[in-house]
């Protein structure tokens, strides 16, 4: 439905978007994941029409979107700061876009009621934004965009201003809303858990480019690059090279894995998939337990293995004392080869 081709954008010395390609399908919940400076907000603003690319193309259903100004695009945006109009109450805020579109008063009222219902804010029509809580403001912003019936809804870090408890619940409600309206949602976030939990597809952005794109499970289990691996919670990334004897890593003190493709330049190991070896088992490598952090459900161990790398390991039982020598092991399936 929406196709971005080779988008480029530079702000002074900073290259925000570097030949970025992207395709969004109708009706899907899409997440743009990236750290600050990755270009995700720039891309979003470009889709909304507030930034113009230095080069590249953007089409919606085959029509060129670039010459179309923001007020004429069938795309609506929910701003990170919510941007509710302070001199209007909730109903007037939601009515704003409908008024611009020339919708009659009668129909406006019913559509506003439906929108408020969808976000669960019935009865708050007369309140002013200053009188709302953060969560309520977010819903009003959502309702204001959704009531326009856009084909594509852009969400700029929608949950960033909410506290942790509210975030998860709101995220799920967001997905329910998306299914109900049938619009494609593009959500920008830096929170990988959010992206993994809600999206049909994720694009991980790095330095203005798409590092990897795909369904959550695929991106999580098979990260394409070291950056994606680290960003998606693979705490351990070991650099090295495939030699005759196997994957050799200097920081791991030797050969650490085998049977990997020749182009492998690093491997990722999840903290949950490494275990401490008992006396009888042969470890993959050994090291010194440097630090222990109790996390309630488990312990996080920092182990300095031969070669100098520090592995993060999640352990489900009381660990040995810091300073002891321990062995660590993992299954062959836990090793994720990285080629970039």
């Amino acid at each position, binding site marked *: 439905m929406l196709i971005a081709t080779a988008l480029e954008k530079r702000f002074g010395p900073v290259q925000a978007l570097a030949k970025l390609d992207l395709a969004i399908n109708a009706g899907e919940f899409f997440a743009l994941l990236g750290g600050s400076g990755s270009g995700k907000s720039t891309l979003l603003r470009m889709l*909304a029409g507030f930034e113009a690319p230095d080069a590249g193309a953007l089409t919606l259903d085959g029509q060129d979107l670039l010459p179309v100004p923001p007020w*004429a695009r069938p795309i609506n945006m929910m*701003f990170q700061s919510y*941007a509710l*109009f*302070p001199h209007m109450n909730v109903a007037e805020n939601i009515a704003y876009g409908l008024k*611009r579109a020339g919708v009659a008063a009668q129909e406006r009222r019913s559509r506003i009621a439906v929108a408020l219902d969808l976000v669960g804010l019935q009865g708050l029509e007369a309140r002013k934004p200053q009188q709302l809580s953060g969560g309520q403001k977010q819903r009003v912003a959502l309702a204001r965009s959704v009531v326009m019936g856009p084909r594509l809804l852009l969400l700029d870090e929608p949950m960033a201003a909410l506290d942790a408890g509210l975030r998860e619940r709101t995220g799920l409600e967001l997905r329910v809303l998306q299914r109900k309206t049938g619009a494609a949602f593009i959500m920008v976030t830096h929170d990988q858990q959010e992206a993994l939990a809600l999206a049909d597809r994720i694009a991980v952005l790095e330095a203005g480019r798409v590092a990897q794109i795909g369904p959550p499970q695929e991106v999580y289990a098979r990260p394409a690059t070291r950056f994606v691996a680290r960003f998606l919670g693979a705490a351990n990334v070991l650099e090295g090279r495939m030699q005759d004897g196997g994957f050799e890593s200097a920081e791991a003190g030797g050969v650490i894995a085998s049977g990997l493709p020749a182009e492998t330049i690093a491997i990722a190991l999840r903290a949950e998939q490494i275990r401490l070896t008992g006396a009888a088992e042969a470890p993959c490598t050994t090291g010194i337990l440097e630090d222990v952090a109790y996390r309630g459900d488990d312990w996080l161990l920092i182990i300095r293995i031969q070669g100098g790398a520090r592995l993060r390991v999640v352990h489900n039982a009381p660990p040995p004392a810091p300073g002891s020598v321990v062995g660590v092991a993992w299954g062959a399936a836990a090793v994720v080869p990285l080629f970039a």
Partner: protein
Amino acid sequence: MKSGGLVRAVMLVGFLFLWLPILLLVGFAFSADRIPFQWGGFSLRWFGALAANERLLEAAFLSLRIAAASATLAVLAGGGIAFVLARFGPFRGRALFGGLIGAPLVLPEVVVGLSLLLLFVALEGLIGWPAGRGAFTILLAHAGFGTAYVAVVVQARLAEAERSLEEAAMDLGATPFIAFRTITLPLIAPALVAGWLLAFTLSLDDVVIASFVSGSAGTTLPIALFSMLRLGLTPEVNALGALVVLWVGSALAIALWLLWRRA
């Protein structure tokens, strides 16, 4: 940050210093004594004398008209300038633009007055307009420096107002002009009003610039007062002061009360 007793005391003394002359001015307006600032029993005669002083009244009405007109012009021009400065981002000559805006704010009045007069003389010589000097040139001059003040006040307010509000409006289908009319304008309205009042007061107060640019045609209230004070003092001045303080004081009180209620 609570301030200590000494600071509070000095602050009170400072306010007293500001207010005492004014309060005394107002108080003695009600004195029957012919010698100003002497108490001769309660009387309203000086208000009557003021009402009968045609020259002063004419000057007052002229000043009010000029002030209202120049303030309105100043808001239009100043608002436009402020919008440009706040929203247009970098453009060629922007630093010069910003610098020129602030200039009338700080320059000594004699310099501004003289240079504006010379400007009007030059214009008259070149294109025949403005013809002669009088109320109209005062109007232009006051609009000129009023613009600077309005621009500063409105720009401060615009800088605060979130840019994303206008973008949200555009995202919802408003063209930039409609976004300005429905979103920006209501939000900066208080600043525009404040700017108008500021320009109005400055115009009403101005002696030096008006003297330079007006020639002898028509006198404004401050100029008339100035001439009076040069020669001596009459209690009519007290009466005028009392009226002004009453007027401004109640306007301010109403404005404050409205704001208080809103909060």
